[in-house]
């Protein structure tokens, strides 16, 4: 008992699943890979990690390859070396200003040049044999620091060159430049940048390796996550194509790399080298990374969807060419036989002609010519004969078995084949004719016999009726006459049903299909059966939709189907119950359902019930009227109208379902 109770709820859930899964199921928690915010965050993090990884690996490489100076030389000394180098460059630049003849006032240009930099003062002492006056600059704003550099420049004929040795032979003139750097760097120039880079470099010289390793790991982890997450969506379990996936992959990859790789490289080559460069390079490198990652994700999605190679331009081109070749072959095989043969023959002939062109032996040329002339008609003849046989067998395969192949102009094996084909056709058409004839004769026999049975039956019915009305002496006689009358009436129905079954099952029944409103038919059936149901103690409940539903059927035959089913309900339904008749649209079908509760237990399968002469109460000798042919007739008639009749038995519930395709 308890087990039964347990079973019921599970069944309910199973049935509810189809219609309302969100109600019976708690919303399934999707993995993180399906969440869009997680993906966006992962994407950004991966890009940042990768960018940092690139930079730090580059720095590491630099540190390792630069003779370990960062680790051996103290920071201040390193800075001083860098500053000295830069100051020397500045000094050279200023000196060159003085030498440049194009500049009107070199002193002013020199002032401007020096003023822009983190230089507190600069002094130039030219050797006495030069026409230049000594020059000096002192910043009004910048406080001088303790960094002071002195450089000696010598002119050997083609401009000043810095030399640190005190004795220089062959120099025409010299200049002594003293540069004092500002205490605090306020301008943005090479000094400040060098200082900053060195500060950072020294601060990071050990930790950079750790950063490199961590960011590389992060980037790899993010990459793996994104590869797993790509193509996943919140809405479904299965991978889905996104917007970009529609574009052919090779096109997408080439376009992206061209835009983010090649194009920036062109721009970069034209940019002047200064601190701005780092930002531009950084932005483009990041963009390139993002594009590459996006491409990888797109690829991962395609792989998950399967057949990624199909959505590539290369595949399309190859596939197109392959299809074209296949199409050509198909076209060739589809061509009429004679054309095909002619084409082949023409091809051989062409080859011969080419061969003849190369041949120098006149005997060979004549031989080839004669061969071609003989071969061509022979091939065409073979093709023509084969076509005849093909057409004949095709007609036969299509059911046109009366068609005979003409043997005119045929000889040898071809004639033999044609004759064989003709004999097969003759035999088959004879067999088919025999069968339809025997079917028709069977129905005719049953019909004719039924006529002959009906004549004596009329007398039996009438005279038994007359006996019962006769004012006879014995009461028994009236009773016996009544039995006779009842049974002969039953016999009459049996004969009618027998004839109809025979006609319906052999298809010897004219069916005129026309548009038929099922709503109307059900209303009519309801009107016809209302009283009969009432007198059988049944209530007819009909569910007819407002929407008009039409099918192709023969109204009279379909009514016969309804009539049989409703009649069965009247005969076999349990008194006091309801009989349901409903109409609904299911897909592209109109479905009419009849349901009733059987009076007798239905210890029988639906198939058995449908069989001829099997009745709901298996024993077949109960007092209920009817002979059980009703369902068989109903099914045959439904099938003749291209419909389907199915029976379902569930305990005492009897259900008949009629399906017709909608118009």
């Amino acid at each position, binding site marked *: 008992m308890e087990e039964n109770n347990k079973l019921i709820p599970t069944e309910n859930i199973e049935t509810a699943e189809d219609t309302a899964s969100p109600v019976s199921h708690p919303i399934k928690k999707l993995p993180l890979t399906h969440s869009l915010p997680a993906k966006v965050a992962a994407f950004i993090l991966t890009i940042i990690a990768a960018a940092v990884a690139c930079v730090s690996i580059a720095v590491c490489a630099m540190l390792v390859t630069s003779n370990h100076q960062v680790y051996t030389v103290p920071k201040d000394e390193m800075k001083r070396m860098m500053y000295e180098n830069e100051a020397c460059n500045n000094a050279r630049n200023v000196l060159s200003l003085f030498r440049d003849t194009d500049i009107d006032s070199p002193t002013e240009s020199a002032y401007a040049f020096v003023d822009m930099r983190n230089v507190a003062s600069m002094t130039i002492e030219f050797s006495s044999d030069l026409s230049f006056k000594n020059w000096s600059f002192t910043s009004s704003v910048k406080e001088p620091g303790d960094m002071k550099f002195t450089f000696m420049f010598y002119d050997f004929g083609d401009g000043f060159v810095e030399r640190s040795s005190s004795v220089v032979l062959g120099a025409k003139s010299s200049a002594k430049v003293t540069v004092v750097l500002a205490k605090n760097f306020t301008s943005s120039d090479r000094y400040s940048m060098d200082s900053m880079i060195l500060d950072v470099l020294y601060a990071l010289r050990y930790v950079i390796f750790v950063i490199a390793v961590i960011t590389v790991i992060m980037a790899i982890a993010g990459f793996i996550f994104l590869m797993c997450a790509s193509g996943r969506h919140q809405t479904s379990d299965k991978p889905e194509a996104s917007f970009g996936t529609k574009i052919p992959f090779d096109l997408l990859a080439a376009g992206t790399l061209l835009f983010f790789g090649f194009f920036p490289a062109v721009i970069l080559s034209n940019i002047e080298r200064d601190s701005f460069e780092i930002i531009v390079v950084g932005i483009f490198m990041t963009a390139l990374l993002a594009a590459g990652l996006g491409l990888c994700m797109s690829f991962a999605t395609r792989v998950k969807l399967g057949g990624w190679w199909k959505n590539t331009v290369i595949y399309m081109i190859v596939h197109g060419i392959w299809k074209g070749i296949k199409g050509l072959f198909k076209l060739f095989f589809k061509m009429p036989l004679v054309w095909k043969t002619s084409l082949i023959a023409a091809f051989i002939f062409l080859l011969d002609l080419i061969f003849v062109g190369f041949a120098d032996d006149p005997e060979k040329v004549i031989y080839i010519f004669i061969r071609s002339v003989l071969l061509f008609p022979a091939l065409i003849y073979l093709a023509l004969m084969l076509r005849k046989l093909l057409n004949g067998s095709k007609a036969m395969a299509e059911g046109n078995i009366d068609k005979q192949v003409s043997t005119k102009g045929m000889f040898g094996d071809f004639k033999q084949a044609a004759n064989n084909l003709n004999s097969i056709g003759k035999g088959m058409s004879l067999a088919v004719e025999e069968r339809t004839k025997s079917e028709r004769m069977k129905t005719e026999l049953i019909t004719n016999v039924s*006529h002959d049975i009906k004549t004596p039956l009329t007398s039996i019915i009438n005279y038994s009726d007359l006996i019962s009305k006769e004012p006879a002496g014995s009461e028994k006689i009236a009773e016996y006459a009544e039995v006779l009358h009842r049974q002969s009436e039953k016999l009459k129905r049996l004969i009618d049903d027998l004839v109809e079954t025979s006609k319906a099952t052999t298809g010897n029944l004219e069916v005129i299909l026309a548009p038929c409103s099922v709503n109307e038919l059900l209303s009519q059936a309801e009107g016809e059966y209302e009283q009969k149901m009432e007198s059988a103690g049944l209530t007819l409940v009909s569910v007819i939709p407002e929407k008009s539903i039409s099918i192709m059927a023969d109204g009279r035959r379909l009514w016969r189907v309804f009539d049989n089913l409703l009649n069965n309900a009247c005969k076999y339904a349990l008194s006091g119950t309801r009989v349901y008749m409903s109409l609904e649209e299911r897909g592209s079908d109109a479905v009419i359902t009849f349901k009733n509760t059987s009076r007798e237990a239905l210890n029988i399968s639906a198939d058995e019930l449908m069989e001829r002469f099997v009745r709901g109460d298996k024993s077949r000798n109960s007092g209920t009227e009817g002979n059980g042919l009703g369902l068989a007739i109903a099914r045959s008639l439904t099938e003749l109208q291209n419909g389907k009749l199915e029976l379902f038995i569930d305990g005492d519930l009897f259900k008949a379902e009629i399906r017709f395709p909608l118009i």
Partner: protein
Amino acid sequence: MYNILICDDEQDIINALKIYLSNPEYSFLEATNGRAAVEAVESNDVHLILMDIMMPGMDGISAMVKIREISNVPVILLTAKSEDADKIMGLNSGADDYVTKPFNPNEVVARVRSQLRRYTQLGSGTPVSQVITIGGLELNDTEKTVRLDGDDLALRPKEYDILKLLMGNPGKVFSTKEIYRLVWKDSPAGSSENTVAVHIRHLREKIEINPNEPRYLKVIWGQGYKIEKDK
């Protein structure tokens, strides 16, 4: 006094029919084949013929065709051939009615009475305006009465309205929805169509001898209802 010719190759059936039809107004002639029937019609004043189809010698259809050449006496075919094609063939060959064997004696009696009345009393009655006549069915709209073969029928108002609508448009098929709209003067709602179908069935029981094989009020299954046009 009406002379009724019963033509059947089974003497038992002739006898049974004579018993059922026994009436002081009827006298009977007998024939057991087609040729005898034709001869009987030639030499007697026959008012109605009950004719079997399958008989030795000349069959019922051929006999009827011969009889139609000399007389327009009503012929009721009484036969075991119950196929639709047979019925259509019989009625098209000039029969006035068709009853299949085994027959319901009461039905045969009613049909005989109906045919006799139409043949002898109504004949070709001059049509009066406001009176619609189809076969033996006569609807008088001024008197609001309906007669079947001369007998008054007691119809309910809605049944009368439906009959008037259908008889006014013989041959036209009306769906239940249309009938509801035109007779009830209301748009159909819910089970109203069922009401129409029930009324039609009651009407059919009143105006038809055998409601399952109606002569006048035909059910066109899946389409609607109509009153057959007069032949």
